[in-house]
């Protein structure tokens, strides 16, 4: 894959910003626009940008590996739904609490965030699996 120097320079600066934004979107998602789905798409876009700029070998993207990411995401999602049952609550019971983190301010620790993490991982895994599978060989 041919890649331009301009794209590489841009990607080198923009990718970290996108990852940072991903973190913010994910963590703040419960109270302001964002959440696992959007954050997952943004992270996938960042990975894609890196991939387009530097090519496959530098990005080390393999569809065989990302299929497992999808599975891991689903496992997190299902696990977070089942966990309350093991603790004696109904299936999918959610709860929440607050913690203070530097820079981000008041961050809520909701049990739903764990499920949101599952959504995030599945989205990233799916997008990268599909695109990398299509571009391989």
């Amino acid at each position, binding site marked *: 894959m041919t890649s331009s120097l301009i794209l590489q320079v841009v990607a080198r600066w923009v990718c970290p910003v996108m990852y940072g934004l991903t973190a913010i*979107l994910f963590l703040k*998602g*419960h*109270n*302001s*626009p*964002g*959440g*696992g*789905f*959007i954050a997952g*798409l*943004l992270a*996938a*876009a960042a990975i*894609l940008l890196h991939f*387009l700029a530097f090519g496959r070998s530098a990005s080390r993207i393999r*569809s*065989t590996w*990302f*299929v497992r990411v*999808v*599975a891991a*995401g*689903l496992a997190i*999602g*299902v696990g977070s*739904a089942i966990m309350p*049952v093991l603790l*004696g609550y*109904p*299936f*999918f019971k*959610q709860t*929440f*609490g607050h913690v203070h983190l530097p820079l981000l301010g008041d961050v*809520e620790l*909701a049990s*739903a*965030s764990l*499920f*949101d993490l*599952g*959504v995030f991982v*599945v*989205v990233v*895994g*799916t*997008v990268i*699996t*599909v*695109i990398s*599978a*299509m*571009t*391989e*060989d």
Partner: protein
Amino acid sequence: MRALLVAGMLPFVGAALVGVLGRDRARLAGPLASAVVATCFLLVCRGLTLFLHEPGTLTYPWIPDLGVALSLRADGLSLLFALLISGIGLVVFTYATAYLDESENRPRFFAYLLLFMGAMMGVVLSANLISLFVFWELTSISSFLLIGFWHTRERSRAGALKALVVTSTGGLAMLVGFVMLAIVCGSFEIDQIIARRDLLAASPWATAAAVLVIVGAITKSAQLPFHLWLPSAMEAPTPVSAYLHAATMVKAGLYLVARLGPAFAEVPIWSPTLTALGLATMAWGSWMALRQTDLKAVLAFSTVSQLGLIMSLLAAVEPQASGAGMLHIINHAAFKGALFLLVGIIEHEAHTRDVTRLGPLARQMPATWLLLAIAALSMAGVPPLGGFVSKEMFLEHSLHLPPVLAVVSVVGAALTAAYCFALAVGLGRGRAGGDEPKHAPHDPGIGLLWGPAALVLIAIALGFAPQMLAGALVESATAAATAAPAPHFHLALWHGLNPALAASAGAVLVGILLYATWWQRSEPPAPRLLADRAYDAFLHTLEAGSRRLTDAYMSGLLWRYNAVVLVVLLAGLLAVEISDGLPPLIPWPSRPPLAFEVTVALAAAGAGLATVLARTRLAAILALGASGYTLALMFSTLGAPDLALTQVMVETISTVLFLTVFLFLPAYHGSHERGWRPGHLLISALTAAAAVLLVYEARAYRTATSISQYFLDNSIGEAGGHNVVNVILVDFRGLDTLGEITVLGVAALACYAIIKLGRRPEGAGQP
């Protein structure tokens, strides 16, 4: 009660642990799994001491809004089955540890086997129909995995598929029956349903519900006409055949009949249907068993036949008959489990299961043969073995049935005796004309023999002291299966001179005669089952039909697919509009559109037009992206920042996706080359008009108040989030999201499979 909960959960935990053992630790799989099963066995024994006379229950809410609970019930019936599952399980697991070759994938085998065991415990301990159904289907799935364990063999795969198709179809029918039961009786809890059985008997749905539940039970227990899967399931490794397809899983149907018998007893179709089916299966199965040459096939048909016998007993929902059924369940588990394990040993040693090629086993492997003969004679109903006691009770019961059924049951007993003698004596002497195998087989070590030996000892003991060993358990199980106080039985070998004894003696004599005259001489042809042919024809027709259908519409032309989808959508909408009539269209509250909105709408329309008119594919892709971005702009002005963000990200990624597949696409023919197609234009215009109409109509059809306000009010209090969209996604509607990400994951997997596996050089079938 917690002991039993743990006994039900432990196999699943064990399956996960054993399943992840690496190749280098594969030797540990057997012992570890056996330890899990032994623990379960002890826990069940503990449960037995607690709940034999006083049933216990334990309930966890699962989906309380739907009345679905994870409730456990421990009474005589469930404990009897739990004891079989864990007891026979212990024998089978240790046997399999010695039986399986070093080269087999042991962790996988034992993980599947533990998964099955957990599912089976779930079936018999569930007090709620929905959880019973879930575990029931799980047993079908684990049975599928185990039958197909040697998945490189064509016949294993076909057998596994057949078992899955038959039992899961029956399971679905049963689910419908369960839902009917719950609607009529107002609960999924089995106790409640039995308590309100008058409602059921009076309901017009009773017959339908009974038929559907019967279908579930007879598919699982391989009764006529659904017996076909069990002989094919013999492709499984022998320990699996012994455990699933003789001692436990096939008895799930019997369990269901016993458990729900009290509820259906008053429904006229229940008892006669099951009695007739059971007896017909018994006679027919034993006739088929007599005509097989493959030892496992003999045992498979014999299992079909014996299950029919028990089914006819449990169908009566009457203490004497149910008691006989329960005792025979225990007997059958002991002698049939032993027979399967011994046949496994014979195959292991002699490298054949063909009756005509096995030499005189009494000389070659005396210990194995002796055990085999005792187990077979117990099945034949020869005193003083356990099988005799329950067989007497069976004949006692069936002699009081209408004459036709009585004759069928005596004939079945005679045929059973005949093939049992063929197993016991015929194998011991070797068949006339059978050539000796090259290297003579001999008895195996104690590792393989102790399990069947223990089962045979039980089969003997059950003859001498049935009341002491099984009396209390049978009485308690009968109480549960008849919803009546526990009866008092006198289980014993000798009941005096009565018609049943005469019938029994006659059956055994005829059996010996049949064996000595007919079986010894004939080359039994193993006929193809009629049901098997029907199944194959059905599968063939289904495949050919779906291929024709697929060929008809899968033309490979994307525009044609789109046209089909849209036309079907329009036709469906049209049908609804015609049948319901147009509702009064309530106009949306109108306000003059803002200049900004007009601009964005025009931009979206322009981008759409540009997509259609583009001369190159690249231009079309970019224009399509632009139309998506304008939509995102629209969302952001309407106070939906989450939607706008998502739209932007999706648009970006799908544009990249388009670009990545760019190279693989065929030459682009835009509208400027192909010319306008009026038909396509019409479909597009109609689709757009239909979409607008739908939006208007949706307003007219609103019957309930909007749920939006509920979400807005409860988002912070209930879920602690200010972003209502996200709270709906991960909390209020979390289950929906779980379903959606599952779909997403499966789609990713499918894409991966199509792209990666479709490109193999030998994949000639790719489009």
